[in-house]
């Protein structure tokens, strides 16, 4: 085994350990922050283009002004808000550590 292969394996192991440690520590907080942001973004999308899912809550003028900005997120947002969710789904972060 030459030095280069040994070096690659060693750095691969270090990266794996680093990721494992992150998974055990910071990942939970990062995920919670992401979910909180996603919930706020959902709300924003409902206010702006809610009529797409049957919630007409803003005059179309403002919707049209904002449409170019929100267009890239529409498919993802519709999937997220229209997906059926049950109890375990809605509160999955409560189940960890039990």
């Amino acid at each position, binding site marked *: 085994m030459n030095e280069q292969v040994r070096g690659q394996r060693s750095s691969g192991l270090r*990266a*794996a*350990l680093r*990721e*494992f*440690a*992150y*998974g*055990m*520590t*910071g*990942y*939970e*907080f990062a995920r*919670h*922050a*992401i*979910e909180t*942001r*996603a919930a706020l973004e959902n709300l924003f999308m409902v206010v702006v283009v809610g009529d797409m899912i049957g919630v007409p809550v803003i005059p179309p003028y403002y919707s049209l002004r904002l449409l170019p900005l929100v267009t890239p997120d529409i*498919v*993802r947002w*519709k*999937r*997220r808000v*229209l997906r*059926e969710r*049950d*109890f*375990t*789904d809605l*509160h*999955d*972060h*409560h*189940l*960890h*550590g*039990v």
Partner: protein
Amino acid sequence: MSSLWIVVIGVVVIYAAYTLYARRIDRTVIASDPNKSTPARMYMDGADFMPTSRFVLYGYHFKSIAAAGPIVGVITAANLWGWLPSILWLMIGVSFIGWASDYSAIMMAVRNDGNSLSAIAHRLISPRTRRILFVFIFFYLLLIAGAFVGIMAAILASRPDVPFGILVLAIMGLFGGYAIYRMRMSIIGVTILTVGLTIAAMALGPLGATFETGKAPNWSTAPIAGAVNSFNTSINAGPLWTTVDPTNADPRIPAPGADGKRPTTPAYNAASGEINILPSFLLASLLLLIFSYIGANTAIWRFAQPVNYIGFWITAIVILVSAVGAVLAPFTNASVAAFKVDAFKGFAPTIAGGALQPLWPMLFVTIACGAISGWHALFGSVGTARQLEYETDALPVGGGAMFSENTLGLLSLTAVAIAGGAGAGAFAAGVGNLINVASFGAIGVPFGTALGFGAFVVIVLTVVQLVFRVMRVTLGEWLGDRWVGFKNQHVASVTGMVLSMALVLSGTWVYLWQLFGASNQLLAALSLLLVTVWLRSVGKNPAYAGIPMVFMYVTTMAATVVTAYNLFVTIATRPGQALISVLGAWAMVAVSILLLVAAALIAWDAWQAWNRYRTAPPEEARVPTAA
């Protein structure tokens, strides 16, 4: 037998089970394919569905399942049947059932658009299954809350060195959440500060106490523990009422002395065998509920999440230091490493009052989480399954984390076996010995034991606050439509707490624990049952999940019947019992029957579904589709 052998057996068995069995199932039955799209890749939304490195997920999944369950179950089982049956079940259970349950639930969710277990049950079996699952989850939570609050209150009431650490843990939890999310402090700095201060407080509690071998610690010389002890003594005018534990597994029952007899203590009457419910026990229970109420009702980032995070670090440190001690002990101090607990105490140990504790089925529910757990499958299907980047990551993440959790059970068994005796006290004494060895004698055994008690309570408490949190959510979802009051988080929390307290104060701890174990294992059997039906529906061989499912189903239902019988014989119909204990026993008998009926209904629906899929042509495995 010594601690080193446990390490060797654990490493060899886990390696063999993973490489020879688990990988084979993954390759030949499930046929995981790295080229198939996972829900995380198909439905990536940056939040719920997000492809994540398998190393990150492994750490995340392990952190989420490593808690108090494997510790409490093992120390109870070693006391009843000896260390040999305990280690056999831990190793056989995780090798053939535990990993299969966790891994299969994740893979089933991956192949079903990332749907949760209850949604899959609704589609594959019947709509009723989903509703029954709610009932199951609620009673599972009620029993675990009762069992954990009971064991912690007993320790807090008898160990005045522990409460200070809990107080600081609460303060650190509040600070940690604020520091990470509001002050945006570095997580490394917050971790060092909060975990360091909590451990320091755990050490300060017993500091100054006089420890003499063979005698109870003298707390009067310790400033903090002495003050707590004086307060406890001042309120303990006499027992409020009494209860019994025929198995002697209750943490309030002291270990036998050198003469083989158990001494009388304020909480235990050796002559009558009764356990005194003291005011200090009641107070400790109430304080634990206040702690849990904060965890259950504040925003999760403000208290519950950081407290759980600190608790995880304390668990990890205890595992690491004790594991080092377990490896070093045979070389540096062979007498510490030698097992003092009997290897085998019989298939049906004699229990006072006519209670039955046959090895089958009771061992298999007493040791729950270290061998197999239904809870893992429940959250694995909604959390981890939606973040897997490749199907081939499911085994190292789901199966690997379960095997890793098993090591926690093995460590707990080592600690109890080298300490002798039983219960949380033996676990703490074992951890104390291992800390002593790992620190090369710098930390004395009594002080290490005190740290062991503190660590035990911290580990369990961080779980309990989350249990109450989930319980209030479940109650709201389950009964909120019938009475809107249950949708109110405070009403739901208080309801759950009152019911748990009724079990703690009126029930017998070991039965409570075994009922919880049975509900947990039944949940695992239900998850395996779903996997079996799913594999049948797609035309694959379901034997690797079906055979363990049948075993777990039969075993846990039998255990529920035995526990109900024990409650009936030893408490409900025993003359001279306090009314509150009798009522508690009947309540637990009712819970047993409810679990039994719920499990039977699900089994019947599953049998019908099985027959439906057996005669129908195999349906195509559901492939994730774009919205």
